[in-house]
């Protein structure tokens, strides 16, 4: 039964008239009667209904009387038809609903006091509402509790078989990990095949369970809902920036919930295009690091080679004195700073202001440099916009989605739910170009498995195919004949057969993908870490723009070029100007007008009060300057370059070289152990601010608890340091900084709604394109694909349950996916090399070699091996060479060629 949504972007549903409780109501044809009734504001109880999936009709609560029918009907499974006369209230309906509650309650244990859902239970509410007292025929099920899963406990005694968990898992998330099983005379929900639950662990089944049948293992028995203080905030893991509720009791975080719940079950399916309200495993179960024992509680100062706990006053005094001394002795250019994109917009803004004005250096960078800036630079160059051009709604309603180099289910789980909804509800065709057989590739209509590192090549192949098959949009290309000519000339160097040979995708598949992309009404490109963190990220994004341009998808509603980001505020870091090339608002740092404006706003006389327009060092250059001794002091906020960059970057030597290394972090990181001063910073749960997610939506972060120990919010520390350095800052809260940003960047916050961006490709196409395009297609054919028996491509990437290094501090996520220290290899390769599970192999790259175990991973393609980038034990990252993009300064170190030998 496909009832929802009645309206999709292509078809507008017809309007029908019906009467509900004596009042005429207009509704869309084809929706369920329950939706129509709830649309009028009447609340008819329903326990198995949720607007995110099709009605299931098992609870028997949503009874209404329809004229012409003798018995009450279930309104959720009944279709609303024209001329229906419906009554939703009355004693007969009340009694019928009461009977339904009695039926459920008679097989439900009365263990409310020990149930985690007590006080947040729909059955409890319904029993109370209908005054159910007669439980003469009550029966106990005595089913043992399924505690085999790592995160959820299934107490099937309490289950009312509403099927919400199964439906949300199957329909909304397309994971399909749960099923009904008839066991011991009762219908029970079990994981597929009655095995221990093994899924994406998003916990949405837990959220929609109206009773306490599914409970959270990490907060089992720890709370009653009324004891918890609920704070609406934004998740700080990936760039999706999901809204969630951090629920605290006393001084600890007890659980994390999301807007998706059985409590808000009323809505229209089309509303889920903006997000269904759920969160992923990281958000829901990765909260334990906030009040972890490992948190830094006091500043640490290096004394006699040892980091010792020091009072704030002394530590901050040391930081200020030593920074001032270095600035006086070697000049402001000897100080540099790096900040993580997990900080709030206000802190990012303040950081660049402190670095540029209070210290006077332009050597600053953020973790957006690890990939997102490839995308930003490319779309700024080609389209004049500074972020992705579509939002979640566009992705959901797309007709064709080209997903390049992104394991989106694992990196950005909630954006992947948008893609899944596009597939399931709006019947989109999805082309996945990736070097791993990921979850989304399994769901996609056209999975194109390429050899690692050849994603960019396949994009060139797609363009060539578009040109060859004449799928070119005459209107778009006709406006720039010169540019189109240049593109045709450049693409002449590309041969589809050669692309097919190198990528491992057949010419027919490329042609089919190209025609699907070109012919669909709304085509969306999403490029992920495989592109933006690749060696030619900038070039490949520009080529993707070319593809959208020649197929006429630029500027059309619902079409666009998009990316996904790893850290929550990478977009915010770019927007706040935490990069040597940008001022806040992505104004160019060498733009005189912008310099004058910001210099004035920051209390300077002329643009000269800002650091010199040229010469600001980016991430890799900062590290190089540290090594050469040019930079004497390095200020790191939440950054951990030692654990992130391969050993070949000599990060350790660079960090040991500087005279003053300040590390400001919630945890004592590898880099922090080398630091001279370690300042304890708060996590997102202890501070106020905003994050800008990948859509450009500015989301509030609210304080859920008091800071742990003596840790302070980053903005507070920055304000103190700046004031100590003689640049008086009077911010008393993050709100004060926000007010300043609002003045300088009017409309940036925009009430949390992303402004629609219109791509402006004309300037680039008219000027500069023709000369540049040739070089973008010229590098074809240089890559050698050596297919020797033990030659492998070693890929490093993200796992579903982790985000950066931060999530490894969350014990819950470590429990779900710990560091096995094993290389993921495909079954075919394990058989070929004669390896068993856990066998040890020697992995050798040009940069070194190490011995580690192997494990089978069915997502890994033959000829590839994978190691999660979150773990450094063993240090697989050190096998990686680093290639730095000349234009964007983005280091690429996620792919290399290795040999694997059995030891």
């Amino acid at each position, binding site marked *: 039964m496909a009832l929802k949504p009645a309206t999709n972007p292509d078809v507008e549903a017809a309007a029908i008239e019906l009467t509900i409780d004596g009042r005429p109501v207009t509704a869309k044809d084809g929706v369920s009667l329950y939706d129509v009734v709830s649309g009028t504001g009447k609340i008819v109880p329903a326990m198995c209904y949720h607007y995110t999936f099709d009605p299931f009709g098992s609870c028997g609560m949503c009874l209404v009387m329809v004229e012409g029918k003798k018995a009450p009907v279930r309104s959720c499974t009944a279709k609303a038809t024209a001329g229906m006369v419906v009554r939703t209230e009355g004693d007969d309906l009340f009694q019928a609903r009461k009977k339904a509650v009695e039926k459920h309650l008679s097989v439900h*244990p009365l263990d409310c006091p020990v149930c985690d859902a007590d006080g947040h239970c729909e059955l409890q509410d319904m029993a109370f509402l209908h005054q159910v007292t007669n439980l003469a025929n009550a029966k106990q099920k*005595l089913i043992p509790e399924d505690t085999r899963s790592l995160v959820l406990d299934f107490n099937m005694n309490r289950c009312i078989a509403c099927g919400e968990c199964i439906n949300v898992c199957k329909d909304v998330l397309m994971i399909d990990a749960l099923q009904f099983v008839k066991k011991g005379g009762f219908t029970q929900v079990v994981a597929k095949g009655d095995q221990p639950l093994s899924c994406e662990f998003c916990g949405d089944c837990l959220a929609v369970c109206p009773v306490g049948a599914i409970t959270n293992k990490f907060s089992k*028995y720890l709370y009653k809902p009324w*004891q918890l203080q609920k704070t609406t905030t934004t998740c700080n893991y990936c760039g999706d920036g999901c809204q969630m509720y951090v629920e605290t009791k006393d001084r600890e975080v007890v659980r994390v919930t999301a807007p998706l719940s059985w409590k808000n079950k009323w809505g229209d399916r089309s509303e889920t295009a903006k997000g269904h309200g759920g969160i992923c495993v990281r958000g829901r179960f990765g909260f334990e690091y906030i009040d972890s024992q490992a948190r830094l509680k006091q500043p640490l100062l290096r004394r006699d080679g040892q980091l010792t706990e020091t009072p704030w006053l002394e530590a901050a005094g040391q930081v200020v004195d030593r920074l001032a001394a270095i600035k006086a002795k070697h000049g402001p250019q000897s100080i540099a700073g790096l900040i993580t994109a997990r900080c709030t917009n206000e802190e990012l803004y303040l950081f660049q202001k402190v670095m540029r004005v209070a210290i006077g250096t332009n050597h600053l960078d953020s973790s957006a440099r690890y990939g997102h800036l490839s995308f930003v630079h490319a779309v700024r160059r080609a389209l004049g916009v500074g972020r992705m051009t579509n939002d979640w709604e566009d992705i959901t309603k797309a007709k064709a989605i080209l997903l390049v180099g992104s394991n989106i289910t694992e990196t950005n789980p909630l954006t992947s739910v948008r893609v899944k909804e596009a597939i399931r509800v709006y019947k989109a065709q999805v082309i996945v170009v990736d070097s791993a057989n990921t979850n989304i590739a399994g769901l996609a209509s056209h999975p194109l498995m390429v050899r690692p590192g050849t994603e960019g090549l396949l994009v060139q192949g797609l363009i060539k195919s578009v040109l060859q098959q004449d799928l070119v949009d005459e209107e778009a290309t006709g406006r720039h004949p010169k540019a189109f000519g240049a593109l045709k000339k450049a693409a002449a160097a590309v041969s589809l057969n050669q692309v097919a040979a190198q990528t491992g995708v057949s010419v027919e598949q490329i042609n089919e993908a190209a025609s699907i992309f070109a012919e669909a009404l709304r085509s969306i490109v999403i490029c992920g870490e495989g592109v933006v963190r690749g060696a030619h990220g900038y070039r490949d994004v520009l080529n993707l723009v070319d593809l959208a341009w020649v197929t006429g998808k630029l500027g059309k509603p619902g079409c666009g070029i998009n990316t996904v980001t790893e850290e929550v505020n990478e977009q915010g870091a770019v927007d706040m100007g935490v990069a040597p090339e940008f001022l806040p608002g992505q104004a160019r740092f060498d733009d005189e007008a912008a310099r004058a404006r910001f210099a004035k706003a920051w209390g300077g006389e002329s643009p000269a009060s800002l650091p010199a327009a040229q010469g600001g060092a980016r991430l890799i250059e900062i590290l190089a300057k540290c090594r050469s001794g040019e930079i004497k002091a390095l200020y790191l906020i939440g950054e951990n370059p030692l654990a992130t960059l391969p050993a070949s970057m000599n990060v350790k030597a660079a960090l040991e070289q500087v005279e003053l290394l300040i590390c400001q972090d919630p945890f004592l990181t590898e880099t922090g152990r080398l630091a001279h001063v370690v300042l304890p910073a708060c996590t997102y749960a202890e501070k106020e601010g905003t994050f800008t997610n990948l859509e450009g939506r500015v989301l509030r972060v609210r304080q859920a608890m008091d800071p742990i120990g003596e840790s302070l919010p980053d903005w507070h520390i920055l304000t103190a340091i700046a004031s100590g350095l003689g640049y008086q800052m009077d911010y008393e809260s993050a709100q004060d900084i926000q007010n300043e940003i609002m003045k300088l960047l009017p409309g940036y916050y925009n009430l949390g709604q992303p402004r629609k961006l219109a791509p402006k490709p004309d300037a680039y196409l008219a000027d500069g394109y023709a000369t540049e395009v040739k070089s973008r297609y010229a590098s074809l054919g240089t890559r050698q694909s050596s297919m020797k028996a033990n030659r492998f491509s070693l890929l490093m990437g993200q796992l579903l349950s982790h985000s950066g290094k931060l999530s490894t501090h969350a014990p819950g996520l470590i429990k779900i996916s710990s560091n096995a220290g094993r290389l993921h290899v495909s079954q075919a390769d394990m058989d070929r090399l004669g390896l068993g599970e856990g066998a040890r192999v020697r992995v050798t790259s040009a940069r070194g070699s190490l011995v580690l175990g192997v494990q089978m991973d069915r997502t890994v393609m033959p000829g590839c091996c994978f190691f999660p980038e979150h773990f450094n034990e063993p240090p697989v990252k050190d096998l990686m060479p680093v290639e730095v993009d000349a234009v964007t300064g983005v280091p690429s170190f996620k792919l290399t060629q290795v040999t694997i030998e059995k030891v």
Partner: protein
Amino acid sequence: MSVGALTKKILQAMLFHEIWDAMKVTFKHMFHRPITFQYPREQRTIPDTHRGALALLRYDDGRERCVGCDLCEAACPSRCIKVVSAEDPSLPLQRYASEFYIDITKCVFCGYCVEACPVNALAMTKLYEFSTHDKRTLLFDKTRLYQIGERYIEDGKKYLIAHHQEKDDQMSREYRYYFPQSVLKATQAPPKHLS
């Protein structure tokens, strides 16, 4: 004033009538049994319904009755109860109170917590002598409450019966929760009245 009334007044004054009137009360009390008794040497008999110090009770087999459901905390009008609940580390899937505090200085002895308790783990005893020099000892913790419970178990049971919370020991056993077993490990056999 009439002559009769005046005569009566003079007569009363001559015979010290007020004194005799007052002495009547005194003499009457000489023949009463004394109401004051020699506390603390003599103790008063206290009714079963008396609301004294709170106690936590155990079952006959020594297991704690309390399941840490936090309902007493919710019912307490003076907010003097704090329950920290958790999964019993020795018995998987069983909920218990890992910590339990009653700030008896705040307690108004209303008995709502006892009424709220679904397993009759809380009871009030006849103990009312817990004055102390150190106010801190008046924050009763779990150990103290169980000590009171062990010492005044009879008081507690009588209190529950007097307040119609349970009829007898048999009924208290029926209130005992059955926690489901884990599929991994059997932890608790279902009680007789359920199986």
